[in-house]
């Protein structure tokens, strides 16, 4: 690797990651049976460019892998091989592996060679299957020749994983008859490797001389290590079939304990080789294998330039508050500077102008630290839905909307799991099998829809499906049998729907590994509650169900229109505004009592006078002297009467509840550029408040 090339590495990684995203998206769109040639071309181009790039930069493992992938894709492109579900699965896994390899190389950490070679093997087999002859040989030979890590790096991933986290140490000692019972440690280890970087240490001490080996008996044992982040349940599941045929211990060990144990394995080339006679017999490497690749310098990896760091929310809040104070101080200084006279007054004002610009940037940056589009959570679903649908034999289309809705990172992080639960439920319980759907007069393909939007100062995330809906009878029967509901009680639909949130409640007769263990919905509700939100369910038998999670915005950016009423400034979220207009006195009708309505495109809208609602002295009480902002909330439209429109801006929402208390019609407050506080209007709340006032 020359110094000249390394400067392009970042660009290569960036492009490759983007390309892989594109490839994954294209793969998910790829129709089995009748693949779109353009999509295959897109996928092929990605593999090709990554192969070229990685070869140029000397990332030979990636180049080798992508070469195999490219060979396979070429078969697809030329149409000599059909696109099957298994194949697109394989290709998706390849995307994962390539991503992992690129990440590893980027972080200057060892590549998980086992996983790579495993998948590469699968790719070769897929290619070979097509040809029926042992055709993969040339490709395979070339591929394997530049794959120095195939076994050499096997202990490396564990060192890497052990660097910071506790690990699982697994002692797997099969009984002799394990093989004869149809279990193969190879399959078990492969499945373990799929869970995370797996360190393998084989113990062949029990293996007798060849003549004494009973070919059907297993004489080997293994010490394995997996990162502590892997769920124990997942590990145990892998060994499920071998239960009773092996001695198995799974224990978690802290990093300090691992480090010394790992050290020798990493340092000495082949410590496992038991007899010292090892060197006596020459084992010449084949000529092809001489083409070794420069190994990534694992030793200098350390933490390096990883893409992100985790920062506690308190620290960011602190930062945010300080910035808020700074904004006020800066506004004060600007005010002062404008009155300043003297020889240097111009310079002072120029400096203050600069300060103001910098402040704005700082404020925006800090804000952006906390905000992320919900697409970060949504993006995991296409793959999940696809895999689940496949496993359950259902046809499902996933629709995502509102992905750009930004929300607080803490909220974002915590909303992920509940959403996964909901989507799983929709797929497992909601969407019926294609046969049932067709019989019910529905398209065979079910739809799961994920939507996010800002709604009245809240964020609403909806998961809906067009499946069978909640089965009220069954829920009720189950609740009665469990004594949750008395036999004589009659419940409303809403109350019945509420039952699904009861801990341990499940109507499914047979639990699947997908859902049905009854630990889903109550956890979902608890998580949402912890975020200060709520979850509601609407369901129509035969038509599907809709789960709506409403989350408060503790902190979010809102595009707002600032409006003036007297000396006060209010922010109306742009999303609720339909339009703003000047009223003619003739356009307003006064109904009985105090309520006024304006005629708007053949419709009559109630007018809300903000000054009345908030008790502010307006510039003018005459409707034709001010302006009306037509806003929409909860499906209703109103005209909000204000003195003037000031301008549009993005504002940070500060919680009023946290600092003061809840006010109906106000979703929060913000600090304006001049340091004054402006209330942010919550249009649906405003409508409620106004109608209560009118009714009073």
């Amino acid at each position, binding site marked *: 690797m020359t110094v000249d090339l390394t400067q392009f590495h970042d660009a290569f990684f960036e492009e490759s990651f983007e390309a892989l995203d594109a490839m994954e998206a294209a793969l998910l769109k790829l129709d089995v049976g009748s693949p779109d040639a353009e999509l295959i071309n897109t996928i092929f181009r990605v593999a090709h460019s990554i192969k070229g790039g990685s070869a140029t930069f000397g990332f030979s493992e990636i180049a080798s892998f992508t070469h195999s992938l490219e060979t396979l894709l070429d078969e697809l492109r030329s149409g000599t091989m059909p696109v099957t579900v298994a194949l697109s699965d394989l290709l998706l896994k390849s995307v994962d592996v390539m991503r992992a390899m690129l990440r590893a190389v980027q972080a200057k950490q060892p590549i998980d060679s086992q996983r790579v070679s495993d998948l590469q093997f699968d790719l070769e087999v897929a290619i070979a299957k097509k040809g029926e002859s042992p055709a993969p040989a040339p490709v395979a030979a070339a591929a394997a020749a530049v794959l120095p890590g195939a076994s050499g790096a096997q202990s490396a991933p564990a060192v890497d994983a052990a660097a910071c986290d506790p690990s699982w140490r697994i002692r797997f000692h099969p009984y002799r008859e394990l093989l004869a019972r149809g279990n193969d440690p190879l399959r078990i280890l492969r499945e373990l490797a799929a869970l995370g970087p797996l360190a393998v240490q084989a113990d062949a001490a029990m293996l007798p*001389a060849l003549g004494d080996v009973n070919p059907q008996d297993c004489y080997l044992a293994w010490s394995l290590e997996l990162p502590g982040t892997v769920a124990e349940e997942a590990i145990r599941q892998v060994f499920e079939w071998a239960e009773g045929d092996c001695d198995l211990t799974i224990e978690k060990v802290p990093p300090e304990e691992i480090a010394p144990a790992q050290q020798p394995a990493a340092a000495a080339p082949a410590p496992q080789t038991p007899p010292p006679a090892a060197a006596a017999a020459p084992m010449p490497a084949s000529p092809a294998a001489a083409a070794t690749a420069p190994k990534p310098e694992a030793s200098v990896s350390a933490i390096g330039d990883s893409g992100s760091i985790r920062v506690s929310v308190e620290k960011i809040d602190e930062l945010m508050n300080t910035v808020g104070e700074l904004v006020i101080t800066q506004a004060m200084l600007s005010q002062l500077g404008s009155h300043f006279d003297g020889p240097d007054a111009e310079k002072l004002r120029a400096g203050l102008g600069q300060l103001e610009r910098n402040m704005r940037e700082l404020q925006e940056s800090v804000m952006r630290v906390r905000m992320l589009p919900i697409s970060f959570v949504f993006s995991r679903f296409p793959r999940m839905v696809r895999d689940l649908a496949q496993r359950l034999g259902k046809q499902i289309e996933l629709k995502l909307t509102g992905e750009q809705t930004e929300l607080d990172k803490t909220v974002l992080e915590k909303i992920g799991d509940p959403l996964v639960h909901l989507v799983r439920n929709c797929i497992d319980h909601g969407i019926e099998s294609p046969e049932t759907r067709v019989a019910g007069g529905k398209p065979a393909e079910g739809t799961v829809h994920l939507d996010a939007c800002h709604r009245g100062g809240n964020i609403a995330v909806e998961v809906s499906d067009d499946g069978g809906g909640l089965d009220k009878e069954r829920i009720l029967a189950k609740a009665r049998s469990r004594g949750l509901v008395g036999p004589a009680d009659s419940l409303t639909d809403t109350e019945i729907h509420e039952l699904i949130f009861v801990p341990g409640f499940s109507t499914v007769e047979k639990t699947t590994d997908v859902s049905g263990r009854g630990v889903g919905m109550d956890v979902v509700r608890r998580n949402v509650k912890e975020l200060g939100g709520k979850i509601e369910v609407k369901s129509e038998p035969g038509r599907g169900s809709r789960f709506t999670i409403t989350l408060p915005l503790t902190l979010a950016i809102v595009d707002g229109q600032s409006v003036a009423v007297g000396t006060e400034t209010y922010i109306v979220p742009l999303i609720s505004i339909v339009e703003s207009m000047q009223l003619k006195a003739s356009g307003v009708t006064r109904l009985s009592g105090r309520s006024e309505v304006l005629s708007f495109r053949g419709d009559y809208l109630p007018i809300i006078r903000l000054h009345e609602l908030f008790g502010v002295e307006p510039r003018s009480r005459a409707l034709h002297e001010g302006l009306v902002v037509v806003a929409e909330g909860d499906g209703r439209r109103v005209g909000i009467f204000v003195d003037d429109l000031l301008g549009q801006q993005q504002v940070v929402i500060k919680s009023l509840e946290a600092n003061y208390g809840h006010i109906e019609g106000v979703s929060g407050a913000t600090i304006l550029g001049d340091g004054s506080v402006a209330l942010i209007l919550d249009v649906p709340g405003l409508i409620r408040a106004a109608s209560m006032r009118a009714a009073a």
Partner: protein
Amino acid sequence: MKTRKQQAPAGKRAHEGPAARGPSRRRGAAAPKSRAAGQRPLALTAECTVAEADSLKAALARRLEDAGMVTLDARALLRIDTAALQLLLAFVRDRRSAGRPTEWRGHAPALDAAAAQLGLADLLGLPAAEAGR
């Protein structure tokens, strides 16, 4: 998902089990591609699994005592499992401890992957493992 691997196709050579080409061919002097050591390579079949383990063991046992270089030819290999790897391991190890040389010819991704997965690549002395060092 993983069970898919079990369906790996048997290549053309699947039928020529090691047992099938036993002593008769050894006696026949035709050793087409002899190595420097003058011994013909021991070709592994496409399928090397527990089902073929008995014949594999027999084939290996016949060459165990060969004084010269024994070349294990893995080029045809498409599928291998723990049972077969274990036999190969015993073979390589026994020869090594007796001071008799063994070498590998040809790369079989299946072999490399399986050996690496089971942590046996070094013990088997697979070339990729040594080249990586």
